[in-house]
């Protein structure tokens, strides 16, 4: 009940960020579909973004990062968009050449 009546602090946001980060990391490690790996990366970036925004929030902490947190979060969003575009292009190119999207099949560079 205390979570409902007490105001939230930075820690609460950080826990959500940690859950998303860990979920994304496991996604990247276990998914066999290249697009699943990509989704894991998006989750990781979002988990980090929650931390930046939480540390930059005036509502949660008196001595906050201020605008810097929000600006970094914006940069991360743009980087994520760029990364998704390139990764998707690579995945599609791989799919066109190999007729599969399974990352385990992409082992041509094995020594």
């Amino acid at each position, binding site marked *: 009940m205390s979570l409902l009546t007490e105001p939230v602090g930075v820690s609460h946001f950080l826990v959500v960020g940690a859950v998303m980060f860990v979920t994304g*990391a496991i996604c990247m490690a276990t998914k066999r579909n290249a697009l699943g790996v990509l989704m894991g990366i998006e989750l990781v970036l979002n988990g980090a973004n929650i931390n930046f925004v939480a540390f930059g929030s005036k509502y949660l902490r008196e001595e906050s990062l201020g605008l810097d947190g929000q600006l970094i979060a914006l940069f991360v969003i743009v980087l994520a968009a760029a990364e998704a575009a*390139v990764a998707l292009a690579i995945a599609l190119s791989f799919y066109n050449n190999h007729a599969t999207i399974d990352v385990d099949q992409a082992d041509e560079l094995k020594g």
Partner: protein
Amino acid sequence: MLNAINWHSFLFLLFGGMSCFFALGVLLSSNVVRMAFYLIVSLTATAGLFFLAGAKFVGAMQIMIYVGGTLVLLIFGVMLTAQAAFVSMKTKSSDWVLASIVGASLFALLFVAVVSVEDWRVPREDQSALTVTEGESATLLGWSLIGIRVDKEEQPDPQLQSGMSGYLLPFEIISIHLLVVLIGAAFLARTKTIVFHGSAPARVFSMSYSDIYFSWNGRAPREIFWLHGVIVLKAIYILAAAIDWFLIPNDFPLLTAENGANGLGWLTVIVALLLIYPAIVIRIKRWHDRDKRGLWVLLPFIPVIGVIWEIVELGFLRGTVGTNRFGEDPLQ
């Protein structure tokens, strides 16, 4: 009972729970279509968390760029590759065991670190006294992206004052980065050749973009000359001049020195210089099509007559019928 509820915390629990729950859904589902849907819900709930933390602009961007752009892209990727065999791919159970051990220990580490700092755990005491206007950050963000930190102009330490210059440089770098990345992505995902239907329906003429714009070997039909040599190159030049004229103000302090007042700014000059090479190689291929050597590109240096001659011969006259010394007839 209802009065005791802190609605900020309630909404935080709602959005935070949704974020975590659907993130776990992405992880545990093996169907890629469902994973994409769960990811959309999770990231939208994250935008709700941003709003709750007072970052309205970032929250709006999260919805617009992430949910509206990146995820639509991902869903297109899912649709383009959704063959029956790849919709649902199971992970080996040994992978699951290993990944959950690593993940659980990573989460335990993060969790302990997060809750052990007193300053992070204790909420701001006067939180209820804060007004909505405290979160008005869109204007401040805009200022700092063009290099002015309105929120931190009173920096007493002169050593740190130079660090208050805002984010103009990172903003420029990330803009160029995004442009380069998108061009690269379009190049990677492109279809390999473009196809023209010539006069003979049996044979299909094709020429890759790199052949058209960068190679001076072979022959090119009139279509290439008009479409690529004239329309595309002129359009790029006009676009550059328009950007120079309308988007780069002449009194912008960083650019005043180079930017001429007549609209022929530095961007136009650079683009014009870059366009010379493709313009020349397209003309060379067209001269080859007329069974003449590439040196004929120098023809426009003859005043008036040279230019008219070039337009008539390259733009309107058909190349030699059949194979000539420069290659096969592109129209047969």
